[in-house]
Every structure is written in structure tokens, then in C-alpha cells.
């Protein structure tokens, strides 16, 4: 017995105004005491719904059917609200994906944690403050007493996630359900949180870990379930699953992860023959620079966000730019794109001064430099359909009659069908949106495209497609890329040279191979160390 969670043939269906959505379609799941089970799968595969169903929070419109649904040996299928309240926080603690919005922004962190203590009467009122401090200490929040009095917005993302975990642990549950606990975090912070979870598990806690990132779960999970479309396609011990995936989908997921070893080959089977080599990189003519930036500095108030940054991008070259959140990557990108004036320093694009000049002077060259942003939807006029979005960037000289043909051709180049023409970007998937953005960018055959985190918001498999696409286009047009990402693997996969930024300054730059294999700077080293790798030989 001993199983904390025991689920058989679970179905969850939602009533929506547009019809029924079958989110979970018959999964089996067990979590034994002290075990760490991970669920992975792409977006929308039903992971979160499964997690929420376990604590009775699937939602009012949800219909749930299961052959067996037991928590700590109790059948919960007939639970009433009062019974569920005894389960929540006490039997199972829940940690949600986005710590930024999962703590009440109007209340102090301490109050949030104490709430659990009060609800389940864990300790007496007088001892609560002490216990809150203790819990925060347990999750390695420095200065727990002071932090307890602060509000969520005063805490960094990592601290917030820790506080959230502390509140989930406060009721001393036997099971912790963590729904994507590291998704929004920097690699280094992500590593710390994983270490923390591992530590709790070592202390006897059972874990149900949910993630879309195989590399993350590989670090601590005993068993992994791979979900797709509401079903479990494969499950087994982590080690076995990673080393010898049986299901093609699992294999596809593993292949799609960009890294040093994936350099030069396709990530996705959908963009070309599986695991084949990509077309050759364009020849980089280092002497022929597309863009030169020297001594860029940007301040906001007395806060310097970019400090003396300089680099060049050769024709056809892909320059990777990595760094933690807030290190100034996007600021650099905006300066280079001519959207922001630097306080000091200059940028020359195609040997023409690009900064400190009137927008009117920049305009003729604008078409040569394109930008792809992290949030493609935000970069589309919300009223426009795909055709208009792309056509806006076509050469104005192209006749009205030919414009549609051009758009269709561009869509074709990014692997989209012409039947999307009339669609609203909102009605597209994330990957499709990013492709539309790319189609729009390449419409002008630019010499440089600035890509600010173009794949961060995408699932691995979709990310793989987009990365492959960029590689193809780069080869075909000889376009140079300024590729910004916080994911070292992606940069390693795609870039020729890399620039590492920390606190607004460039700490290291050079060819990718050199920098990532022999990092000279401590910061680069710590980034690399924190990188969760798909270690297929066993758990760390």
C-alpha cells in the first residue's frame, strides 16, 4: 500500500462555451511515500490539470471521472468542500508555476505562511512567528525574520519561489506537488531551487514534480511520466527513460534539446530529415562588419544598466548574447536596433552612424536591420491579420497585386500554409506566431536580424523547429544574427561567437566553443555549472 497518490484511469473534461475540452484522458499515476515522480510534456498536455485535480482544485467547470482516486489511502472521489480543505496543505502542498503571482501581493510573506499554520492549527498563535521564521530558514531564505515582514514584490524571483515552497511545507504535508517550480527563473536560481527540493526529498518528503523541461526533472526524479494530449505516452525510471526512450515522442523530445552536442544538426524532425546536418553556416567575413558597437553605456537614474559594452558583428555571423535576467541584454538590443539612445558610446550599422542621429537619417537603412522579439504577439498590431502584419514590411514598391503572392511566399519559407493569411495572430500557436514574426523580418532581406529571446516562450519541440528555421534562413540569405538568450544550450547550438553579460558589462567574449569549454570568468563558470544537463548516465 504505502502509496500517497494512487490514480487509475483519470479523466478530466472541461465545459467551455465552445464545447468540451478533454484535458486529461485516462491516466494512471502513483506516488509512493518518499518517492519523486515527475510529469513532463509539452504545453497543454494536461500536466497542471492533473496536479490540481489531486487537491480538488480542477475548477468548477471540470468534470472528473476516475476508476480510482486516492490520497494517502483515502478515496477522495466523494469529498465535499470541507473534506478537501483537510487535504489541502495538510496531506498535499501545492507550489504553483509562477511565484510572482502565486503569493498575494497585498500581504506579507510571513502572513501567507502563517495562514497555513492558522488554518490547520499547526502551532499555537504565539509560536507562529517563530515557526514562520523556521520555515523560511528551512528553504534557505536569508534573514528570515526580516523577509517575513516584506511583501512579495520586495523579493527576487528565487526568494519568492522559496517562500512559496515554505508556505506549501508549513502544513507538514507528506506530498509536495510542484507545478513548474523553476520555469520563470534564471539558470543559477533554478539550480538552487532544485537543490532545495532534493534536500526536502532527502528529508522524507514525497514529490510530484511537473515540468516541460526534461533536463530539469532528470536531476531529481525517480520516475518520469511523459504526457501528451492528456495521455501518458511513456513512463519509467528516469535513467532508463532518458537513456533508452521507447516512445518516438519521448525520443523526439530528447532530440529537440539544443546543446553543444547538437551543434550543426537538426533539432526537429518536422523541419527536415531527423537528426540530419543543417545546411552549412554562411561564410563569416570577419573583416566585413555589419555592425560595430563601441563603449555603449546606458543609465536609468543613477542605475547603470549597460556599462561600456562593445562588439562587432561580421557579415553572416551569429553573435550570441547571454546573461542572467536584468543583466542588460535587451537594453543592448534596443540600442543596437536604434530604439534607444545610449548615454555614451556609438553604434555603426553598415558603416553608417546609427546612434545619435535623427530618426530620419536612420530610416533608409531601417530595412536592413530587423528585430524579432521574445513576445511575437505583442509585436503585432492586435487588429491586424497575418497577411497585413507581414505585408506591412514588404517593399513599398511592390504592386498591390503582387503583395499577396509575396506574403504567401514568405509564409512558405517559414513553413506556414497560405490558409493562415486571414487568421489573427491571436488564433495562432506560439510557434506559428514566431514564424510569422520571422517571415515579416526576412521580408526585407536584412543584413542583420536582432533576435531577443526568440524561443524562450516556446516548448522544446517548437523551439527546435524555430531554431532549425533560423539556421536554414541564415544559410540561405547570409544574414547575420544578434541572438539573445539566457539559455546557454541554445546559444551554444546556434552561435558562432558569444558575449557574456553580467550586471550590464561584458565579462567575457569569444568563439562559443572556447567560451563554453574553457570559461575564464567566474560568472561564466557559475552559469555553466548551474546548467541542468541531460545526464543520461545517471542521477547526480
Amino acid at each position: 500500500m504505502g502509496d500517497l497518490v494512487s490514480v487509475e484511469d483519470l479523466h478530466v473534461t472541461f465545459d467551455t462555451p465552445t464545447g468540451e475540452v478533454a484535458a486529461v484522458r485516462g491516466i494512471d499515476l502513483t506516488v509512493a511515500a518518499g518517492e519523486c515522480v515527475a510529469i513532463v510534456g509539452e504545453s497543454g498536455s494536461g500536466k497542471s490539470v492533473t496536479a490540481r485535480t489531486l487537491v480538488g482544485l480542477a475548477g468548477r467547470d471540470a468534470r472528473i471521472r476516475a476508476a480510482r482516486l486516492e490520497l494517502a489511502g483515502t478515496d477522495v472521489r466523494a469529498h465535499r468542500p470541507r473534506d478537501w480543505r483537510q487535504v489541502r496543505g495538510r496531506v498535499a502542498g501545492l507550489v504553483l508555476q509562477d511565484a510572482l503571482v502565486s503569493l498575494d501581493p497585498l500581504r506579507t510573506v510571513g502572513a501567507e505562511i502563517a495562514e497555513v499554520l492558522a488554518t490547520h492549527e499547526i502551532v499555537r498563535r504565539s509560536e507562529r512567528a517563530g515557526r514562520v521564521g523556521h520555515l523560511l530558514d528551512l528553504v534557505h531564505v536569508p534573514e528570515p525574520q526580516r523577509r517575513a515582514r516584506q511583501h512579495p514584490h520586495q523579493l527576487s524571483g528565487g526568494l519568492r519561489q522559496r517562500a512559496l515552497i515554505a508556505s506549501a511545507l508549513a502544513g507538514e504535508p507528506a506530498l509536495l506537488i510542484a507545478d513548474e517550480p523553476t520555469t520563470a527563473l534564471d539558470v543559477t536560481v533554478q539550480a538552487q531551487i532544485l537543490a532545495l527540493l532534493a534536500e526536502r526529498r532527502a528529508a522524507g518528503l514525497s514529490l510530484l514534480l511537473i515540468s516541460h523541461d526534461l533536463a530539469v526533472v532528470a536531476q531529481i526524479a525517480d520516475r518520469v511520466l511523459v504526457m501528451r494530449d492528456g495521455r501518458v505516452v511513456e513512463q519509467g525510471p528516469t535513467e532508463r527513460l532518458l537513456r533508452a526512450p521507447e516512445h518516438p515522442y519521448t525520443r523526439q523530445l530528447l532530440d529537440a534539446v539544443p546543446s553543444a552536442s547538437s551543434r550543426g544538426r537538426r533539432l526537429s524532425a518536422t523541419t527536415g530529415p531527423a537528426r540530419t546536418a543543417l545546411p552549412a553556416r554562411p561564410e563569416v567575413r570577419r573583416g566585413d562588419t555589419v555592425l560595430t558597437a563601441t563603449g555603449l553605456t546606458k543609465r536609468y537614474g543613477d542605475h547603470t544598466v549597460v556599462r561600456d559594452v562593445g562588439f562587432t558583428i561580421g557579415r553572416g555571423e551569429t553573435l550570441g548574447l547571454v546573461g542572467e535576467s536584468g543583466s542588460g541584454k535587451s537594453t543592448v538590443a534596443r540600442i543596437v536596433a536604434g530604439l534607444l539612445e545610449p548615454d555614451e558610446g556609438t553604434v555603426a550599422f553598415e558603416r553608417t552612424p546609427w546612434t545619435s542621429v535623427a530618426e530620419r537619417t536612420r530610416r533608409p537603412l531601417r530595412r536592413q536591420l530587423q528585430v524579432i522579439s521574445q513576445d511575437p504577439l505583442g509585436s503585432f498590431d492586435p487588429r491586424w491579420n497575418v497577411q497585413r502584419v507581414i505585408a506591412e514590411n514588404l517593399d513599398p514598391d511592390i504592386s498591390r497585386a503582387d503583395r499577396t503572392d509575396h506574403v504567401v511566399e514568405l509564409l512558405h519559407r517559414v513553413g506556414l500554409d497560405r490558409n493562415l493569411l486571414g487568421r489573427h495572430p491571436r488564433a495562432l500557436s506560439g510557434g506559428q506566431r514566431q514564424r510569422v514574426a520571422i517571415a515579416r523580418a526576412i521580408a526585407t532581406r536584412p543584413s542583420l536580424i536582432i533576435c531577443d529571446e526568440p524561443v524562450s516562450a516556446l516548448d522544446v519541440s517548437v523551439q527546435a523547429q524555430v531554431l532549425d528555421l533560423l539556421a536554414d534562413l541564415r544559410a540561405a540569405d547570409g544574414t547575420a544574427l544578434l541572438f539573445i538568450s539566457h539559455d546557454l544550450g541554445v546559444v551554444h547550438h546556434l552561435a558562432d561567437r558569444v558575449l557574456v553579460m553580467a550586471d550590464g558589462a561584458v565579462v567575457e567574449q569569444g568563439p562559443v566553443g572556447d567560451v563554453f569549454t574553457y570559461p575564464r570568468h567566474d560568472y561564466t563558470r557559475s552559469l555553466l555549472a548551474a546548467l541542468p544537463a541531460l545526464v543520461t548516465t545517471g542521477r547526480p
Partner: protein
Amino acid sequence: MGRPPLRSVLRRVAAGVVVLWVAATTAYLALLAAPGDTVDTLIGDGVDTPQIRADIIAEWGLDRPAVVQYLDYLWRLVHGDLGRSYLLQRPVAEVIGEQLAPTLILSVAAATLGVLLALIIAVVTAGDRRPWLRRLSSGTELLLVSTPSFLIGLVLLSVLSFRFGLFPVAGGADLRALVLPTITLALPIAGLLAQVLRDGVDRALDEPFVLTARSRGLTERVVLARHALRHALLPAVTLAGWLFGTLLGGAVIIEQVFGRPGLGQVTLNAVTSKDMPVVLAVVTLSAAVYVVVNTAADLVSLVIDPRLRRS
């Protein structure tokens, strides 16, 4: 931390003074532009001869250039002198002073009742727990905010006061006389605030932190009271300016309907008879109250929402 920085308070006050000045000046200019001159106003439908006109002009200093009169007006305003009423022949400060209390009592009573009602309605009907009650209440709210308040007042008056004699018809002294006007003024406020609050509660209930709170085993009531309601209060607080406008504007109508004394009556009389000093004073006063109310609302927002405290 925790307290609004002095600079932002000062900025607000400065902005408030500007608003005040603009309001007072606009009103002054507007009245200047009005047809019929001040002398006509002072004569009313009384006897009109050149001698009388001359007397009036001399008495009120109307022969001075408009600029001088305007500056004189501002100068006296800064010193707290609101001038004399043309119509009532008494100092404006006195006229307004003695009419302030009834309006204030009515407004405070109505605001309190309205806000309380709204809170109760919002808490009871938020979420999907009692769909029929929610429907009933949102329908009623819509009706309340869509019906002219004087109609509500007249109906209440006819039924409860004339027909059944439950409440006195008019007068300001008796506490019972306050009941109907208060209800009339409070109902539309309650209607709108309840909608805003419930909307806020609903929205808050959709937030991930509420899911987290529920995952801790809290009862719905606690989730509502401790988490959702505070969030719902934020948009409600920004309605303070609107609330104030409704109260003062409402007072004009309600006092008329219920024959109550108060600023509303003073204002209406002053406006219809072009009693310039009184109109200007009411405008300045209401602009001042508006500024104070809005500043207070901002401060309350700061108290409710710690995120706003960063400067």
C-alpha cells in the same frame, strides 16, 4: 518603506493647487461670459432705473476693470474671503458654512450606507456560489444605476412617507428625516460600487494566488475576506472622485426632492439666479474637496497596495 515619500505628497498638493486655481478661474471666466451683466442679476425682476443701476455698480465695485475684479477675487480667495452673496446679501462663507452641515451629514450617511451595502452585496454574491442571488442582485444594481435618482426618491417619498407616513416628508433636524434621502442617495452608489467590487472580487478569485490560498485549505469565506476583497477594494478606491461627485451632484437633486436644506439648494439657487460669489465659492469648495478626496484615495491605495509604495 510603508509611508508615502514626502516628495510625492508635495507633488500631489501642488497639482491640487493648480487644479483648484484652474477650476476657480474657469468658473470665473465662464460666469463673466454669461449673458446679462451682474447689475441685471442684482436687480432681478425688481424695479430698474438708471439711478438704481448706478447705486448697485458703486456698491459692488462693478465699474473696475474685469482684470482688477478677477485679481481682487483671487486675492480675497487666498485670504479665505469668499465675498458677499448678491442674492442673500450676506457673506458667502456664512451662507455656505451654515448649509454645509446638512449636506455633509447626508453625504456621509449615504456614502457609509452605500459602501456598506456594496460590500455586503459584493461579498455575498461574488463567485458562482449562489447564481440566482447573483443574478437577482446584478439585475437590481443595473436598475438602480439606470434609474434617475430623483425618480427613486419621489417614489420612496410617495409610498413610504405620503402613503404610509413611515418617515417625515422633510426637514433636517429629525434623524428620521434623514432616512429616505440617505437611502435615495445611497442606492445608486451601492449599485455601482457593488458591481465594481464584485467584478474585482471575481477577477481576484481568478488569480493564481487565490488558487494557492485555496490549496492551503482555506474556507471560501476566508479566501474572499482575506485575499480577494482587498484586491477588489483597489479599483473601488479609485472611484472616490466619482463618489464625491455623485454625492454633491446627488445632493442638489435630493435636497430639492426632499426639501432639505444644504449646499445643493444653495448651489441650485445660486446657479439659477447667477449669484456669482456663491457659485464661485461652491466651485472652489468642490474642487478643493475633490482634490482632498482624491489625494486621500491615493493614500488609501498606498496603504492597501504595498506595490505602489515604491517611488
